[in-house]
């Protein structure tokens, strides 16, 4: 293809029109790059279409001259698509750096095509155009990374919320006896949720005894102890007696060494002990059925 560009046109303009003209060829080459190929596994046409959309966006941005601006309006039409692609790659196990590399891999085929445009690839104008295109693709890389990080943060937030909901069930162990098996680290947000759901359960079940089982809590520091004591105090205000169970020997030692006073809290070694205590306080006796009395 002969070099028929207007010699006075600026490099971004030239690159913009190049992208527009060679859209089909670039898209075909990109569709074979690992970024598009691994996302659009069903059909190659789909990958070509997606590539075209990105080429169009880049051409828009080039013409607008905002080469290094990741917020350029030209990216808006493809932002969602890029988001879906990065999410897809991330789910497949690609790291953000890996995704960035895949975007960078789009440069070589594009630059090669651009060089072919010029009769003399070493001419200053050609060099400038290659530089512009490189800059543009660098910005695309940033845009892709940005969407990838956004999607990651969104996912973490969603999972945190789910964890919060899942990790605090209140179980009815017996009539008027409820238990909360605490699993994982107890921070203030979680202890708030635990407290709320426990108090609701106390009202609902008309519970006299509430057992907080901390078998699944890995460490107890002064902050966690404070949260526990708050929960115990709140349960007491609701007229229920609170028992903390599942204190492992190592944790008991830590509590003593930290000088945390749990004296006002009723404790038992295991959930079974706590339940036995609650039952006996309610005058319920659990005994082995006598073998002889098992009448047919």
């Amino acid at each position, binding site marked *: 293809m002969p070099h028929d560009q207007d010699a006075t046109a600026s490099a971004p303009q030239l690159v913009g029109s190049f992208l527009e003209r060679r859209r089909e060829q670039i898209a075909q080459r990109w569709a074979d790059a690992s970024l598009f190929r691994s996302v659009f596994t069903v059909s190659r046409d789909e990958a070509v279409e997606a590539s075209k959309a990105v080429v169009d966006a880049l051409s828009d941005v080039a013409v607008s001259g905002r080469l290094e601006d990741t917020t350029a309006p030209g990216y808006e039409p493809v932002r969602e698509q890029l988001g879906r692609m990065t999410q897809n790659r991330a789910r497949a196990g690609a790291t953000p750096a890996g995704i960035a590399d895949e975007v960078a891999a789009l440069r070589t085929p594009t630059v090669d095509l651009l060089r072919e445009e010029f009769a003399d690839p070493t001419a200053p104008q050609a060099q400038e155009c290659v530089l512009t295109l490189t800059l543009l693709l660098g910005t695309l890389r940033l845009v892709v990374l940005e969407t990838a990080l956004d999607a990651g943060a969104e996912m973490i937030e969603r999972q945190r919320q789910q964890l919060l909901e899942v990790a605090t069930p209140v179980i009815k162990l017996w009539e008027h006896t409820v238990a909360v098996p605490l699993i994982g680290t107890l921070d203030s947000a979680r202890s708030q949720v635990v407290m709320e759901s426990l*108090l*609701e359960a106390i009202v609902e079940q008309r519970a*006299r005894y509430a057992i907080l089982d901390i078998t699944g809590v890995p460490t107890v520091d002064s902050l966690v102890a404070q949260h526990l004591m708050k929960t115990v*105090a*709140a349960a*007491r*205000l*609701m*007229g*229920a007696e609170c028992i903390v169970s599942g204190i492992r020997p190592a944790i008991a030692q830590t509590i003593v060494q930290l000088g945390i006073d749990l004296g006002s809290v009723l404790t038992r070694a295991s959930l079974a002990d706590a339940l036995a205590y609650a039952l006996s306080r309610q005058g319920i006796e659990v005994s082995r059925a006598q073998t002889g009395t098992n009448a047919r």
Partner: protein
Amino acid sequence: MNEPVPVHPAPVPVLALGDILLVSLQGELHDGLAEQLQQDLSHRIATTGVSGVVIDISGVDIVDSFLGRVLAEIASTARLLAARTVLAGMRPAVAITLVELGLVLPGLTTALDVDRAMEVLSQRGR
């Protein structure tokens, strides 16, 4: 403005149920009301010789340090007059607020509702 002055001025009704006095707090308790309630209650405990007082706060949305102190004082006064006080019907939200404020009402016996409070008093009275 005329203040209604009944024979026994008791803006917070105090009901006698056998051996127990029942107070049901509704809404906000102003300083004047609180003082009147304290006087009224101690008078009633002394004259009737009841063994227990149940304070129902299921109709109370906010318990602040003032109300907390009033409740603790009522309990202490009742104890001096040989009556036990049980606080009944605290809402979960109120309990959480109190705990966050560090007001855990240490001297007070608590119960889920009035029914349970009566139970507690009859058990301890035995």
